[in-house]
């Protein structure tokens, strides 16, 4: 009986299956590490893609605003050109009139032709002015400007979302959510060194800078498997604005020939007074 008891005690101390338990533990650890590594990778990539999408959206919105500026610049330049031509024709006509006083009957047809030319140029100035007013009225409409900016920004966003576009379909509609495309808000952030909300340029979404704040969702792998929650929210913000091309590029012979103030776009720092990116 004593021998049997001793044998039973020995059996209790056996290490049968110990390696299996260790193995199971290691497998669980490796699986957790695997999912963790994939998730960390996905989160890092997601963060980069989110920033790229915010940059793309902000640049796109600013590029649309630049085209508003550039259309106006072109129309204003055309107006001043026509004014210059009208003045030139009038000076010519005045010269002919002075000569007419000293030598009566001298080339009256040429005098009339100069006056006609001046009238034609003045008429064009009037038409251009009316056109600019009509253009401004359209683009500063409370709906047209913001809608146009949002459409442009949405394309910039979708194009740069990368795998975030398929990770969560709702990410493609980020800009339609309130507050993602900050156009008219009075916020305290400094954009490009100036307090954004105090600029007064962003009244209707057709001018000024654009600030994009997005929170795309990323469906991660491991967190879902372990029931922690399959979706993580990432955050990114970016600002861009139309800037005068000469300040960025220096001498621009192609534009200088026309004397046009041309605007191009750049990303702008947020919350600092640093230079443009």
């Amino acid at each position, binding site marked *: 009986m004593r021998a049997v008891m001793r044998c039973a005690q020995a059996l209790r101390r056996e290490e049968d299956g110990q390696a299996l338990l260790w193995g199971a533990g290691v497998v669980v650890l490796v699986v957790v590490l695997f999912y963790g590594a*994939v998730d960390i990778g996905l989160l890092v*990539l997601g963060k980069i893609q989110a920033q790229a999408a915010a940059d793309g959206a902000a640049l796109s919105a600013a590029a649309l605003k630049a085209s508003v500026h550039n259309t106006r610049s*072109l129309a204003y330049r055309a107006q001043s*050109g026509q004014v210059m031509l009208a003045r030139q024709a009038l000076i010519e006509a005045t010269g002919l009139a002075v000569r007419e006083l000293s030598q009566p009957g001298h080339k009256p047809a040429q005098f009339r032709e100069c006056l006609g030319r001046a009238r034609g140029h003045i008429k064009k100035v009037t*038409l251009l002015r009316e056109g600019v007013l009509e*253009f401004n009225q*359209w683009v500063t409409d409370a709906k047209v400007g913001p809608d*146009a900016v949002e459409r442009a920004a949405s*394309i910039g966003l979708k194009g740069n979302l990368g795998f975030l576009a398929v990770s969560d379909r709702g990410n493609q509609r980020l800009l339609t959510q309130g507050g993602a495309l900050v156009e008219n808000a009075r916020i305290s952030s400094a954009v490009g060194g100036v307090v954004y909300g105090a600029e007064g340029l962003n009244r209707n979404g057709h001018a000024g800078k654009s600030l994009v704040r997005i929170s795309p969702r990323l469906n991660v792998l491991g967190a879902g498997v372990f029931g922690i929650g399959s979706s993580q929210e990432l955050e990114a913000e970016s600002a861009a604005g139309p800037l005068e091309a000469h300040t960025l590029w220096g001498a621009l012979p192609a534009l200088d020939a*026309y004397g046009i103030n041309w605007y191009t776009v750049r990303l702008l720092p947020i919350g600092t007074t640093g230079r443009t990116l």
Partner: protein
Amino acid sequence: MNGCNDCYDAESGQAMVEFALMVPLLVVLLVGVVGVGVALIQAQQLSVAARHVARQTALGMVEQSLKKGGAASSVQVLASRSLAQSGARESGARMVGVRWQSLGGGGGFRAIDGHRAALVISKPGGISVGRGGRRGAGIGVLYVGVGLEREQAGGTRLLNIGASAVMPLELPLTGTREMPGVMDANPWIRAIVNDKLDTRL
């Protein structure tokens, strides 16, 4: 007692057998982790390279149109040059077109070619130009897109990883037949001024 000692002897090497069983599983998991990691890194490298090439191409187009004249007809050349500078070509990246239709954008958004698309929003009814009636007016954005893909080592297309990036830029002053410029989006200005414009921009 001796019987029990025999039992202990019979189990020697059990850990080794169990370890041998576990090794293939661990190797598979390790290879999986490394494989997924490499794929993610490659995808990210391609994505970053695509964004870089698209951005450099967009900047190149602006610089070219502002400084040298002659618009974006050489977008393919600009993109190829940017790809070469990025170093992605050495790792086997190849440039492919961008699927613009997936970006939507509604009316006014159209693909110009494999690398360019434009959004032009027109004023309904255009702008009055006196007795000449009404002419079109609008605003817009140009987009430059670049898609890259890479074949795996060995020449076999084991895994294709594609990436695309879209970078916007402002419309040039005058465009080409395919690509709109500010003047093309606003023919009302040309209709009034009625002067021949230099198309270098």
